[in-house]
Each structure stands twice: as structure tokens, then as C-alpha cells.
């Protein structure tokens, strides 16, 4: 670090050694950019080995018959697209894709977004104390470590849990939620867990909507819902897009909540793709199979990210 001098960004500043800056050759320019890029190295190494590495490994591993036990555990051999062909002929896989879609749409796209927006809107006209209390509890459910939140949700939806004893108070004999309605339970739990994020994003977005515009619409005779649909929502549409993408990506990788609440069960009735990948790889020792599912998830996540990054483009450039 002491032998090379990073050149100032300002042209015309004196450089030690008395060399006029203009006469340096292309070699010096290359050396200068290399020195400037040097601090990127630790990050590049970490990301390359531990983030890009698994991604490449995932694509490669999905083409082998690797397993944790048995003969294939020693040396995995290349099997081409066999894992994928097997995957598509296995009834569990299409079912899991469907469950994942249901989970994404119901808990993220509809549940968290609509509830988050509704809370953000309602809180504007609510009493200060109510607003603070709602904010605190909604955000606490989100900030709690995932394993603790998952247990709280497990206890809530359990056959002998809080939900059924509350229903019992009003004379309803509640079902065994986790066993008979596993998807409903995990969807509701994920809404409980994740709504805070959407609520915070929408609160910030609504805060930025100039009040004069809604007020002048009110003067022109626009009703409450008209102001919402024709003025407020179009003005925060960028936040809506961003938030839809982010909640979708977060929900796509929800594992712990479902794993603790139902374990993917009963059977595979609530096995979304991350759970199925885990079950195949670690419970049924089908590493190649699990890796193929992981690869598909990565590709789906990458497609979502691609759309999201295109939407964010002006901020990077």
C-alpha cells in the first residue's frame, strides 16, 4: 500500500515523484486501475467461493447421481438430465410447484401486500396510541428470530393452541389446523410474520405523497375510494412493484416457518419447493434430486431478480 500512490480523482493535482500526470503510458493506467480495484478483492473472493460456488455446484450436482449414503456417496457419476426427467415424472414435484405458487400468491402477493397497505392507510387516520401499539406488535412478529416466530405460530395453530381455545370461547369447535388445513395455517402464519415489511414500505411511500393533491381531489368531490384508486395508488406504484418483487423473493425462500409448523406434512401436503428439496436431499438421501429442485428454485429466483433489477435500473446507473 505504501509503494503505489492512488492517483487523485481531481486532475492536475501534484503527484509525488515529480512526474507530470499526462505523460504516463498505458501500463501505468492499467496498474493504477488494478490498485484502485484491489480493495474489492476480499469481497470478490468471499462472494466467488461461497455464493457463486454453490450456484455453479448446484447446476453441476443436479446432473449427477450423488447421494449421502450407499455406493453413490463415494463417487458421484454424471447422469445428464436424469434427475430432471425423474423429477417431472414424480407426482410430488408438480404438487410441490402448485403448493409453492399457492403459498406465494396467497401469503405474499395478496396477504402481506394487501394487509400491509391496508394497515399503512388505516394507521394514518387512527389514534396515536392505537397506531403505536399496532406498529409495535406487527414489527415484533417480523423482527423476532425465525425459529422463535415459528414456534409462536406453531403454538397458535396447534390443535390445543390459542386459536382453537379462542374459537372455543365463542362456541366453535375449531379444526386441527396443522393437520387438516396445513396450507391455510402456514399461509396465515407467513402473513403474520411478514406483513411488517410491506407495512413499513407502504407507510414510507404514503408519507411521500403530497397532501395537496389528495386535498384538491377531495375539493373536486372525489370519494375516499376514488382518491385511493385514482390518486394514491398510481402515485406509489413504484413502491408497489418493488415491494411485490421483494416479498415474492422472500416468500420463495421461506423454510423454517413451514419446517417447524408442519414439517411439510402431513405427507407432502405442505411441502413447498424449499421443503421438498430438503426432504429429498437429507431425509431420503437423494442429493442429486434435491440439488435439481434447488437449481430450479435458483433459476426461478434469478428470473424474478432480473425483472426486479430492470425496474431498479436508474438507481444503479
Amino acid at each position, binding site marked *: 500500500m505504501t509503494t503505489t500512490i492512488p492517483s487523485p480523482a481531481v486532475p492536475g493535482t501534484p503527484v509525488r515523484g515529480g512526474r507530470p500526470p499526462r505523460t504516463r503510458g498505458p501500463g501505468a493506467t492499467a496498474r493504477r486501475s488494478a490498485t484502485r480495484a484491489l480493495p474489492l478483492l476480499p469481497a470478490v473472493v468471499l462472494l466467488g467461493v461461497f455464493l457463486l460456488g454453490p450456484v455453479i455446484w448446484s447446476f453441476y450436482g443436479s446432473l449427477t447421481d450423488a447421494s449421502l449414503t450407499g455406493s453413490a456417496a463415494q463417487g458421484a457419476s454424471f447422469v445428464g438430465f436424469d434427475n430432471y426427467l425423474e423429477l417431472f415424472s414424480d407426482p410430488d414435484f408438480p404438487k410441490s410447484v402448485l403448493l409453492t405458487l399457492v403459498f406465494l400468491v396467497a401469503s405474499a402477493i395478496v396477504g402481506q401486500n394487501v394487509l400491509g397497505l391496508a394497515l399503512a392507510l388505516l394507521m394514518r387516520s387512527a389514534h396515536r396510541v392505537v397506531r403505536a401499539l399496532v406498529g409495535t406488535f406487527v414489527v415484533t412478529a417480523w423482527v423476532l428470530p425465525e425459529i422463535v416466530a415459528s414456534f409462536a405460530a406453531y*403454538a397458535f395453530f396447534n390443535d390445543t393452541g390459542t386459536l382453537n381455545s379462542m374459537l372455543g370461547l365463542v362456541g366453535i369447535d375449531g379444526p386441527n389446523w396443522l393437520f387438516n388445513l396445513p396450507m391455510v395455517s402456514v399461509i396465515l402464519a407467513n402473513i403474520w410474520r411478514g406483513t411488517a415489511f410491506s407495512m413499513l414500505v407502504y407507510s*414510507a411511500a404514503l408519507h411521500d405523497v403530497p397532501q395537496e393533491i389528495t386535498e384538491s381531489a377531495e375539493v373536486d368531490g372525489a370519494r375516499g375510494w376514488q382518491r385511493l384508486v385514482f390518486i394514491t395508488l398510481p402515485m406509489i406504484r413504484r413502491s408497489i412493484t418493488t415491494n411485490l418483487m421483494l416479498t415474492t423473493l422472500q416468500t420463495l425462500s421461506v423454510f423454517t416457518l413451514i419446517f417447524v409448523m408442519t414439517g411439510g406434512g402431513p405427507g407432502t401436503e405442505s411441502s413447498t419447493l424449499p421443503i421438498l428439496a430438503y426432504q429429498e436431499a437429507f431425509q431420503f438421501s437423494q442429493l442429486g434430486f434435491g*440439488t435439481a429442485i434447488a437449481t430450479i428454485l435458483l433459476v426461478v*429466483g434469478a428470473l424474478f431478480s432480473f425483472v426486479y433489477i430492470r425496474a431498479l435500473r436508474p438507481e444503479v446507473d
Partner: protein
Amino acid sequence: MGMTSPSQRVLRATSNGVLLLVLVAFALPLVWLLLASVDTSATLSVKWPEAFTLDNFTTVLTPDLAFVPLANSLVISLGCALLTVAAAVLAAYPLSRYRMRINKPFLYGVLFGTCLPVTAMMVPVYSLFVWLNLIDSVPGTILFLAASSLPMAIYMAKNFMDSVPITLEEAAWVDGASMLKTLTTIVIPLMRPGLAVVFIFVFIGAWGNFFVPFVLLLSPDRQPAAVTIFSFFGQYGSVAYGQLAAFSLLYSVPVLALYVLVSRSLGGASALAGAVKG
């Protein structure tokens, strides 16, 4: 306080009513956690304890049950946060200060990394770690956690660094200070609050992570609290809900405290959400 029209009063009452219902629904699972932790005969349902007692806490506050796992959590989260912040600050400096040809592709790559579904990757990560001989290794786990939180950290660090004015550094450059010296003596002290936010953000993420150590760490004496809570549930779960709740609370307190700290210092709970570019 301006004058309120009847329609505004109706709106206000409806909002309050709906919000109170939502409040009850959101609070019940958390209230269960609190009440069960002070009730030695806790069940899975919310109920008022017959006697408030701290017995659950004293039962779990033993080296085996709580201290070793919490210490493991601390080592993993601190290691991860330190490593991430160091790598992120170093990377953010050239990205923020120089116009280099690799800036744009690098930032796009980083942005892409923030979106990667890390949970989906755990199966390939496991087999990669078997190959690298890093299974059941605490440093290995720290490295993976650091790598997976690095994209977001670089992004945040760069945004914080962009808001530090460049004029002071120009003076230092004129005086012949090296890049590393400028970074450590001028830029880092000026962006300390921002770095604290990045540090806490990464720390909270690593402390709360269950799936990564669950897959990568096998020996019970190396596992963080997140994983031991899960095994505790498997072993005694059906009898000792109170102890489970007490341990869960002990484990959650640092995260809640750090969150309050960050949101207070940045004014409003939207700090973390804002950092994600909502």
C-alpha cells in the same frame, strides 16, 4: 387540532376498530410466548398463569442448555458481522470514489446477489461444504453467512459512503496519503453511524438464522441457540413449553434490543426497510 367533520370522525372510529382487531390477532402468538415463559404449567394455548414465577428461566439458565448455545450464537454472529462489514467497507470505497469500468457490472452482480434465495441453495451448499471438508466447522459457517449477507452490506455501505463529502479526502490525497490511510482515518470515522447500522443489520440476520447452522453444524456443542431451541423442542417439547418459551425469549432479547437501537438512532422503524430501498 383542526375541526373534525362527522365523516372524519366515522373514518377515525372505523380505523381504530379495525386496527384493534388486527392488533389482537398479531399480539396473541406473542402474548402466549410471554405468559408461557412465566408459567411452569404452560400449555400451547394462551392462559393466565396460576402463579408468576421465574422458574422456567432458572431451569434453562445452565451452561448446557443456554450459555454454550448463546455463546456460540455470539461467536458466529460477531464473526460474520465483523467479516462482512470489513469486506463491505473495503469494496464500497473504490465503488463510491472511483469511476472504474468494473463498477457497473460489479454493482449489478451485487444487486443480483441480494435477491438470491439462499434457503434454496442449502442443498448444494451442503455438498460443496462436504467437498471442501468444512462441514461442522464454525469458521466455515461464518464464511458462508458472511458471503450471503455481503451483497446487501456492500450496497448499504456504498450508499452511506456516497453521502460522505469527498472534499476532505482530496486534501488528504494532496498531502500524499494512501488509499488505505484515507479510508481508515477520514472516511470510516465520518460514516461510523452508517457502519453501525450495517453491522447490526448483519448481526441480527446471522443471530436469527436457523437453516444455515442447522445444515452446516452437526455437533451439539458447536450449534448456536437457534438450532438448540429446535432440538430442545424435539426432545422435551411436549412437556416443557414454559422452558421453551423462556429460552426463546432469552434468545430473542438481543435482537429486539438491537432493532430498537437502530430504529431509534435513525428515526422511525422504517430504517431497515428503507435500507432495502423500498
